[in-house]
């Protein structure tokens, strides 16, 4: 067992600021930290493709069955970090989805959890009840970085 310490800060200037004005009339400063007990750690940097299910990974970012045989709430799962590492302005959007391996780019596609524009990132728990998949709006090598930290207690 090991411990990781994630920390997230969200800041914004007031809307009256002369540079990087924020969305509110007051400045925003939010901070959250935690200490998480984990076991396994895995990381990868993936190529992405406009045609989903292409490449060595076949469009699967993380396969739930690799980590647990039964995704039980509050017991089994992991923490996932994902970043679109393509250069700012590259226009390479990467879609992350759950459930079936499919094209995730359709308007209103219900299995698309979110889109990461260049340099955007996410950090969230994952209960390993579904696979996490990816799709993109074109081909780019070394485009998607992801880490998974498996919760201690996952069976």
């Amino acid at each position, binding site marked *: 067992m090991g411990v990781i310490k994630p920390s997230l800060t969200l800041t914004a200037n007031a809307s009256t600021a002369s540079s990087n004005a924020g969305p509110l009339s007051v400045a925003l400063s939010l901070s959250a930290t935690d200490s998480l007990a984990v076991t396994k750690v895995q990381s990868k940097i993936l190529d992405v493709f406009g045609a989903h299910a292409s490449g060595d990974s076949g469009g699967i970012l993380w396969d739930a069955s690799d980590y647990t045989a039964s995704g039980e709430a509050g017991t089994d799962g992991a923490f996932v*970090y994902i970043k679109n590492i393509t250069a700012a302005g590259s226009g390479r959007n990467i879609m992350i989805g759950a459930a079936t391996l499919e094209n995730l780019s359709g308007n209103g596609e219900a299995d698309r959890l979110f889109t990461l524009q260049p340099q955007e990132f996410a950090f969230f728990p994952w209960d390993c*009840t579904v696979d996490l998949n990816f799709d993109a709006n074109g081909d780019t090598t070394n485009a998607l970085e992801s880490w998974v*930290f498996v919760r201690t207690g996952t069976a």
Partner: protein
Amino acid sequence: MAKYITTTLSITSNAYTATTNPGPVSSPLAISVTDLLDVTAVESKVVDMLTTTHELIWDASEYFTTNADFGVDGGFLYFRNLLSENTTPDTLHDIIIGNADEDLDAVDEANRIFTLQPGEFAWMPWDMTMDIYCDPQETNAGALETILFVRTTTT
């Protein structure tokens, strides 16, 4: 006029040989990322948990008028479980986040995105292709903090 928030995430751990808070791998980890996001509306709420009710937290249809296009429409979501763990740890203060108005706590429930244990947080984009629900395990006031920042390009 553009309005910005700055987000920073760090994930750190000691080497597994450390005498306090040993990490999950043989070397220390230090991941740090930051991003500047262009947003418009901000909405924040602290949600009470009602044990017998699945609660709609974010209704996608409230934020766009045409289609939920990838890379265009959407927002960024922050979640934090504000509860403390019970003296004898259990799952009663866990908060389940999912994408369907139903019980989300079954083993391998495919509509459960993740479980937040006490003190845990998440940061992720949201493409507004699905509504976001929570499924409490027990009645608790002031249990879940969540903030939505809407992407500027959302129409």
